[in-house]
């Protein structure tokens, strides 16, 4: 082990040297070649992600298999270290790393637990690459498996509420449409507005579909039979991390006593236990923070949040609202949040396990407790 670790320490320096020697032929996007490595995981990850069918965790797994292909590591120790480094790079460079982490974590656990039966290390590496690609190929069939399972829960004439855009939900709905009459309400899912994408795809397929404002979910809830959402990640508590708004839909569904179903491929199962929204790795101090002192703090106003001079006639109201300095936007014909204000909002939220009725995944239909038992059994053993 001391030998391996010594090599491991030397390794980054070697890659640094070799990177200058090797032309950046592998890099598809030269602007992304900020890291001085011969193989840019992030570029490869981005390229794989361009494929519509491939989800974030799978793209991360495939990017890591490509890394193994290009890796010059001579020992398992070095290889695992490289994988960890690459996972770290990916994590740093994406804004929402939760589902990506699920993928990298799964693959690294797989690599470390993989039996070392090969004759040489090169053989082992090719074997790992083969296994990784095989898994990814197999994982692409998971969505049809899930839609098959969910089909039994969709009755004829069902009215379904879904949130934002999810590939697995789309596949399930389209599949259900072939055999049953369904109609779908879809939320707009601000700020990205991905609900529009869902609406267009479903309408094109001939499914009766209506867009719902995020703020009108409670209004529509009584007309709905059940809720079907995709997921960013399913965590160890049995809870769900998904596009922001899922939590409030789940709470309203619970209040209206409607089942809330989540669809999640098993590679989205993630060893994470958020205790609250603010315990998520995506949460930063900036999110939904009150405005700090402006660039021009007048001594008289230091106690109050920044207030533009023009609105100082009503400092209490404007001071406490994030739209404190949005004089320009109020003058426009439509009231809207500024991009900075949107940036201060969360992109994902956490839904507690007690709000979720069932999780449909390729390993079966699980209760939230079942998810956590599956996860604990998989990783804690």
């Amino acid at each position, binding site marked *: 082990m001391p030998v391996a670790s010594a090599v491991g320490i030397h390794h980054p320096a070697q890659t640094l040297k070799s990177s200058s020697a090797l032309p950046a032929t592998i890099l598809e996007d030269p602007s992304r070649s900020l890291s001085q490595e011969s193989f840019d995981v992030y570029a490869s990850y981005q390229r794989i992600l361009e494929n519509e069918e491939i989800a974030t965790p799978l793209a991360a797994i495939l990017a890591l298999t490509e890394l193994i292909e290009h890796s010059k590591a001579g020992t398992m120790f070095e290889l695992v270290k490289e994988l960890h480094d690459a996972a770290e790079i990916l994590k740093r460079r994406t804004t929402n790393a939760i589902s990506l982490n699920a993928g990298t974590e799964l693959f690294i656990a797989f690599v470390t637990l993989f039996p070392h039966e090969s004759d040489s290390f090169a053989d082992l590496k090719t074997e790992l690459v083969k296994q990784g690609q095989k898994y990814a190929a197999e994982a692409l069939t998971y969505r049809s498996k899930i839609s098959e399972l969910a089909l039994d829960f969709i009755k004829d004439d069902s009215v379904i509420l879904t949130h934002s855009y999810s590939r697995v939900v789309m596949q399930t709905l389209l599949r259900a449409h072939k055999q049953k009459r369904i109609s779908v309400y879809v939320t707009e899912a601000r700020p990205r507005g991905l609900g529009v994408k869902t609406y267009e795809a479903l309408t094109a397929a001939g499914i009766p579909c209506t867009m719902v404002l995020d703020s009108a979910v409670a209004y529509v809830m009584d007309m709905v039979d059940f809720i079907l959402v995709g997921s960013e990640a399913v965590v160890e508590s*049995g809870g769900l991390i998904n596009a922001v708004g899922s939590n409030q839909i789940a709470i309203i569904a619970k209040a209206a006593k409607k089942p809330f179903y989540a669809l999640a491929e098993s590679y989205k199962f993630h060893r994470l*236990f958020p205790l609250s929204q*603010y315990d998520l790795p995506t949460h930063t101090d900036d999110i939904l923070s009150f405005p700090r002192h402006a660039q021009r703090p007048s001594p008289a106003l230091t106690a109050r949040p920044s207030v533009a001079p023009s609105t100082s006639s009503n400092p209490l109201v404007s001071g406490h609202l994030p739209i404190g300095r949005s004089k320009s936007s109020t003058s426009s014909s439509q009231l809207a949040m500024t991009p900075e204000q949107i940036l201060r909002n969360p992109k994902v939220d956490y839904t507690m396990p007690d709000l979720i009725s069932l999780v449909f995944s390729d390993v079966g239909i699980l209760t939230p407790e079942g998810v956590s038992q599956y996860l604990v059994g998989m990783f*804690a053993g």
Partner: protein
Amino acid sequence: MPSAVVPLPEAAGQSSAPPGTLPAKSQKQMTKAERREMQERQRAAKAEKATQNQSKNSPKSSNKPAQTSKEGALAPRRASKAADLAPKGFQGAGGQSKDVKASGEDKSAHTRGLRIFSHFGLPKPTAHKGEVHPTIVRLGLQFSEFKITGANARCIATLTAFKTVIQDYVTPPNNTLSRHLMTYLSPQISYLVSARPMSVTMGNAIRQLKLDISGTDIDLPEQDAKDALCDKIDTYIRDRIIAADQVIEETAGNKIKDGDAILTYARSSVVEKVLLAAYADGKQFTVTVVDSRPMLEGKKLLEVLSFAGIQCTYLLLPAVGSVITEISMVLVGAHSLHSNGAVFSRAGTALVAMMAKQHLVPVVVCCETYKFSETVQLDSFTRNELAPVELFNSFPQNKQQDLSSLSDQPNLQILNPLYDLTPPSSITAVVTEVGVIPPSSISSIPLALGRTML
């Protein structure tokens, strides 16, 4: 106490000698010699006990009986002085066990009237078959007087004592260690149980020890086998308790954020370590220590935390409702964890947990996997323990006179259960050494079930 074992080499030689030549007689001689040995050790133990009482050592320091007894031997002057101060002086093994018996009867007399809780009382001490090792006698006393409390401390103390017992043990002729040692340990265990009901942690550790003993190779020389067993005990303590605590410290520490207000109940060694480690990491948080009669363990925790510089608030259980809205996380320890996810912990924990759940404050239990019990427990009535009335006042100190008059009242019984059961529904997460998990998933951990070792 390896240094105190004088007859070991010859004993080993005896056991390796061909058996068959007057085995009964040699055995008798052996026990005589051993008895003398024991009496001497008994005396030392008694003296040591007195010095401990005098210096008011914290219970943790008595976790290392080997070290302390050696210390006592090295300082004979101090020991003899202590022996003079000891009220009864040397009485021998029989006398001491009678003491424990007497106190046990006292307790049962006090709790006799509590009909539905009568099963909480101490089990009637049975006549001790076989001899009880002085280390165990001392440990029993420490248990029954609550000098050593806490699931972890008791488990470590028991295992450490068993190491001494195993080292002093000599396999009788015509027997093998793997078969006979357990019959020798059984009276020791039942002696400890008569002092205070066994904790789940002790039960789990002893089960593992039994497994190790029965798995001992018959062909191994006796001393080697004993050393191997002691090594296994050390490994168990290190892996399942010490190392587990370190992992829990880190994992639970990550859940503490700057500006958090943590609430804890009574005193748990793990929670104490978590808070201290998080504070040492530079996290800024406040701690509310909730405490309750009769044990008032939280005072000790308060002392440790405020000494470290953590901003603390101390309040009693009835006041929890007033502060719970200000709390961001409840962090408690556990006595044991059951397969339905219920946590058995100091009486009052369930109240705190339910109150927190009601206010949507996350309840996090810090618990090593070796505290897992495969039983299902549904309430705190079927199994519990009563705090001895003589040791823990149910009334404030300044009413000392009233206490004596009150406790003598024929119609008054004092009921102080030591534990209660927190249902899994009021627990958010359990922090174990294998990660943060929901309480219902504890049975999915193979390690907790003892199927695999680390």
